[in-house]
């Protein structure tokens, strides 16, 4: 049975310095509140995994929480670049950022292998591109039946995966719908998992297109209404497209970003009923 916890306690218990951490959500249901809680609790040396490290990881990278990023597309969708990500890769600011770069197909299959308890996955990908030259986690494998050579990628098994979903019930069964991305795979691939939800309800009414994660496959659930903002939760909120543009102005400049972290993230800790802030704020 999944524990129902506060966001601060959930992050405090489940995310540790040096962990491999995946925050997933493919444009929809991105766990932004949890990302900011990780900044607030001052986690460091994280290996961040995410197919699309958009604003949520620009914030974590800019705040110096990460030492490595495993990803397949790092941009601000519909707007342009991620300036904190660029600054880290191009100028090692605020700390150097190692990268491990894949395609979406490769990342999705790495999660599938992780969720399946397999050490690797096979796909028809990467052939002829420059990615294998720079990414050690792309190798080749020969089909034992046809002799064809295909790409192989190793499983991703995060220490902790964090996702946002629409609802959970009091036992911790999680329900999400709409674009469901790789969230199920990210949770199943992980050792521990935290799901932030729009609301905890008595009964999960079935919804077309739903994905349900049973309570015994989830470590903890935290009720965080609006926890995906500026991403959205179908049925609960709309994508805040203006915020994505606004982020460009925040992320573009180091000082503006630092001010944003101080005023919008660190100050935010007092707004939560936190008890799990063990590491203090740096």
């Amino acid at each position: 049975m999944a524990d129902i916890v506060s966001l601060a306690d959930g992050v405090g218990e489940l995310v540790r310095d040096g962990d491999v951490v995946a925050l997933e959500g493919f444009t929809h249901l991105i766990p932004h509140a949890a990302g900011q809680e990780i900044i607030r609790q001052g986690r460091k040396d994280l290996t961040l995994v995410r197919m699309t490290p958009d604003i949520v990881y620009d914030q974590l990278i800019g705040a110096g929480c990460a030492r490595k990023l495993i990803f397949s597309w790092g941009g601000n969708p519909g707007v342009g670049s991620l300036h904190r990500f660029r600054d880290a890769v191009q100028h090692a600011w605020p700390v150097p950022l190692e990268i491990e770069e894949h395609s979406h197909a490769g990342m999705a299959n790495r999660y599938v292998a992780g969720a399946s308890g397999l050490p690797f996955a096979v796909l028809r990908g990467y052939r002829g591109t420059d990615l294998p030259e720079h990414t050690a986690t792309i190798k080749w494998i020969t089909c034992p039946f046809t002799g064809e050579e295909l790409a192989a990628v190793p499983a991703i098994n995060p220490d902790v995966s964090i996702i946002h979903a629409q609802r959970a019930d009091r036992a911790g069964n999680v329900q999400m719908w709409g674009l469901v991305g790789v969230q199920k795979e990210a949770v199943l691939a992980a050792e521990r998992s935290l799901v932030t939800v729009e609301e905890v309800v008595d009964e999960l009414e079935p919804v077309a297109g739903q994905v349900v994660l049973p309570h015994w496959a989830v470590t903890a659930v935290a009720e965080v209404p609006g926890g995906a903002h500026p991403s959205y939760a179908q049925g609960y909120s709309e994508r805040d497209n203006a915020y994505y543009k606004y982020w460009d102005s925040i992320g573009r400049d180091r000082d503006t970003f630092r001010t944003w972290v101080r005023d919008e993230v660190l100050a935010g800790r007092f707004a939560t009923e936190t008890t799990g802030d063990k590491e203090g704020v740096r």
Partner: protein
Amino acid sequence: MTGAASTTAVSGAQPEYTSDEMMSIAAARALENGKRCFVGIGLPSTAANVARRTHAPDLVLIYESGTLGSKPDVLPSSIGDGVLAETADAVIGVPEVFNYWLQPGRIDVGFLGAAQLDRFGNINTTVIGDDYTDPKVRLPGAGGAPEIAASCREVFVVVRQSARSFVDKVDFVTSVGHGSGKGDRERLGLPGAGPTLVITDLGVLRPDPETAELVLTQLHPGVEVEDVRAATGWDLQISPDLTRTEAPTAAELSTLRTLKEASR
């Protein structure tokens, strides 16, 4: 992913329009009705949605966020907009998009953008500069593009043309076009035909059937060959059958503008 819209106005007997509008409409026209089209956000998505509202009502739009058959009534501002899921025939997880739908070659047209494109249609969206570990500019990366470029039956590239973006050889091959020339795709075992059409704000390029090098086959109204040469970083060859794009019709322009207006 969308940049600042071009504001070059082209005028004449036709209604006024920008070169970006010409590009979107030329790209839309290239999409045949009934085809299944894997759509990237930005210019490709604009063009695909114009096509669906003009000559190709049964165009099947597939977005990598997990929607099959989306019918958005406004231009989505990201590949994950709710409207794409709400109007889709089927919504599926991301691994399924790539494994069950893209990889087996079920998609007719992959519609891609590019930060850098070279004479053989190879695409770079990874890094600008010679050193991957110390790039001049770090770009977003691959996303779905390498497998879209590999697996779709053909690929259309929509991109604004400039000598900086149209280079002799891309700094990094993110997605394979025609590799180093004719026959390379077959040697690599890439199932699709690769880029068969590159639609820019100046004209249209197609791979030469003999060499697979991109040659200019079509000029948009008001554009001269020299303009395109100046915006190309290699010694651009011109097709002997060079044609002239028909200017956007009033109906096409109004469809495009209505879509754009609705999505503001």
